């Protein structure tokens, strides 16, 4: 099945023609997560098994007796996608060793939203990464509990109004900075960590392909625009993803063997207001709060640049004296 017109003309070398995440799912109009999952699956290919946490993606894709999944897929609960993925990986390893399944490489992938990754699923994620399973974990970060009705998570950005961090007379909404899970993954010595966004489809698919080649743990933090939860127009999904990168709200980088590098780096950052102004969740922000968010972006980008410039890869460090 191929839903792209003129695919053979434009993209035969760039993307798998086959669809492993099919049309007909129940995602909202303009869902950035559905777009991300479709591209991620193309990059992973058919020899993939996905363990999915409870959340938007599970609900929109698997209403019995229908399924959108063209690859083997299992959902158990909310906080345990990484643990289920660990078991899938261990099961395949044992069965392959004992000759009960064909001796062929199959990539195990776990997927969860920001809540299932950064909040309730963080322990299982940490455990799986620490144990070193051959498992790619993908966080589909739409920056709040969208499936339950836009409640704040530790992925919600500073200043965003959600149903549990509402803007009001005495509050400007979310009062905390986004938890830096990619950094936590680097601290686990995960050999491949990256941030990605489906508004940069080739960059996203390249990162997934790299992660697929890692025979060990890997982590991709995928920015997933949510027009419904962000109170934005559904035709702005791709633009909003680009604006997040162009303003530095969501920098695209990867960490290979401990070595940081930007994969998409705007020559000059656009003012954050260009990104915020399209979204109802930021509508209430005063110029002071916007200035604070702008400062936070500079701090984070400079922090990243400092790592890119000064940190060595773990293998380089092995060879250095002192």
């Amino acid at each position: 099945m191929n839903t792209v017109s003129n695919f053979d003309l434009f993209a035969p070398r760039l993307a798998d023609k086959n669809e492993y995440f099919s049309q007909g799912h129940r995602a909202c109009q303009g869902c950035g997560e559905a777009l991300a999952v479709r591209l991620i699956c193309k990059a992973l290919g058919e020899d993939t098994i996905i363990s999915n946490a409870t959340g938007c993606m599970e609900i929109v894709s698997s209403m019995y007796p229908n399924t959108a999944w063209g690859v083997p897929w299992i959902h158990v609960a909310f906080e345990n996608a990484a643990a289920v993925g660990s078991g899938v990986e261990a099961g395949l390893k044992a069965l392959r060793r004992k000759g009960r399944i064909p001796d062929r490489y199959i990539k195990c992938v776990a997927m969860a939203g920001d809540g299932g990754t950064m909040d309730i699923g963080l322990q299982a994620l940490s455990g799986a990464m620490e144990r070193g399973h051959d498992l790619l974990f993908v966080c589909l970060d739409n920056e709040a509990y969208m499936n339950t009705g836009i409640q704040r998570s530790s992925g919600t950005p500073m200043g965003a109004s959600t149903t549990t961090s509402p803007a009001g007379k005495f509050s400007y909404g979310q009062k905390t900075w986004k938890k830096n899970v990619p950094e936590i993954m680097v601290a686990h010595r995960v050999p491949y960590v990256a941030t990605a966004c489906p508004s940069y489809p080739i960059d996203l698919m390249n990162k997934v392909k790299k992660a697929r080649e890692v025979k060990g743990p890997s982590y991709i933090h995928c920015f997933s625009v949510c027009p419904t939860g962000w109170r934005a127009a559904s035709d702005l999904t791709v633009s909003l993803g680009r604006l997040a990168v162009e303003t530095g709200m969501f920098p695209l980088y990867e960490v290979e063997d401990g070595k940081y590098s930007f994969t998409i780096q705007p020559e000059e950052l656009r003012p954050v207001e260009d990104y915020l102004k399209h979204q109802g969740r930021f509508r209430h922000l005063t110029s002071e709060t916007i200035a604070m968010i702008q400062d936070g972006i500079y701090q984070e980008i400079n922090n990243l640049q400092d790592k890119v410039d000064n940190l060595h890869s773990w293998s380089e460090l092995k060879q250095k004296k002192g």
Partner: protein
Amino acid sequence: MAKRVGMEVAIAAAEAVGMCNVDVAACYPITPQSHIAEHLSDIVADGRSDTEYITVESEHSAISAVMGASGTGARAYTATSSQGLMLMHEILPIVSAMRLPICIAVANRAVSGPLNILNDHSDIMPQRDAGWIVMFTENGQEAVDMSIQSFKIAEREDVMLPVAVNIDGFQLTHMVEPIEFPDQKDVNKFLPPARKPYATLHPDKVVTMGAFAMSDIFSEMMKAKNEVLKNSKKAILEVWDEWERMFGRRYRPIETHRTDDAEVLLVTMGSMGETAEIAVDEMRDKGVPVGLVKIRLWRPFPFEEFKDAVKKAKLLIVTDRAVSFGGPGGPVFSEIKSALYHEKNRPVICDYIIGLGGRDVAVSDFVTMMEQAIKDNEKDTIKEYEFYGVTE
């Protein structure tokens, strides 16, 4: 011919699991399960079992990981106790709903509030309605035999359900008992070395597992789960018959001791059965015709067998090792009362809540319970349930 060895029961249970060609085990340490988890890791480290052993970071992840493994078609095992089982609670009904034949050993321990590491049944009772096959062992030999049987039962095509084997913590897990291990070649004959691949996660045949269901189909799924669990009794009996033919030891859902002409019956579940047997013998020696009924299979509850075992009784003295707070006493008591409600000749039924948080229950305690219940029954002053031996 297999020879008898003296061995700690937890170690023996792990040895038994080590004979079952388990593909994936995931364990998180908790007292008093820890000797099972440790010894199984020893068996794997020594290469005596070709098993992927995942040292998970919690019991929640233990049960989740064995689910993922079982999803691929692997034979999967875990073991836990008390708080660990409570942490698994969320996942247990999903295992049975997805028909994954996972086996678990529960080294029964009191559930916290206050913290207590010793034995009772308050950990398994909240899991009663999870849709699992739940069995109790009485001694080390049973812990070994039933650990092996559990894989055979779970993986049968007409069952495909998870099985929990309860082994009383400390009172059983930490006792050294004489144990007769079956020969490995006989175990291989009894238990196929590999699970039959049913619906499994593999790209060669793409499946979606764990889809969500709305009200149009949810009730039908719950009914189906109930039916398959009820029907599993037939398969359990067949597996036990086969075990008896091969290894000579007989297992029944309800077992009895000197019940033939007894009008007064004591009811136990788990390791206290052997102590209660001695108490019954002592009462018999004094000329009091009492008997003992032991429940081995808790889910599916063997209504038929239980009713048959107590049909001539005038007085039934149930013992419970957990409390249904604010309810009818203990969970076993409530089960039995409802099971006998429609019987024409119902015995008088009373309940003693005993052995909580490791409180020792001696032969003399069972004698006291029986004597008191008989006396109270004669005077018509019998209490429905009471906490036995509690300092007021």
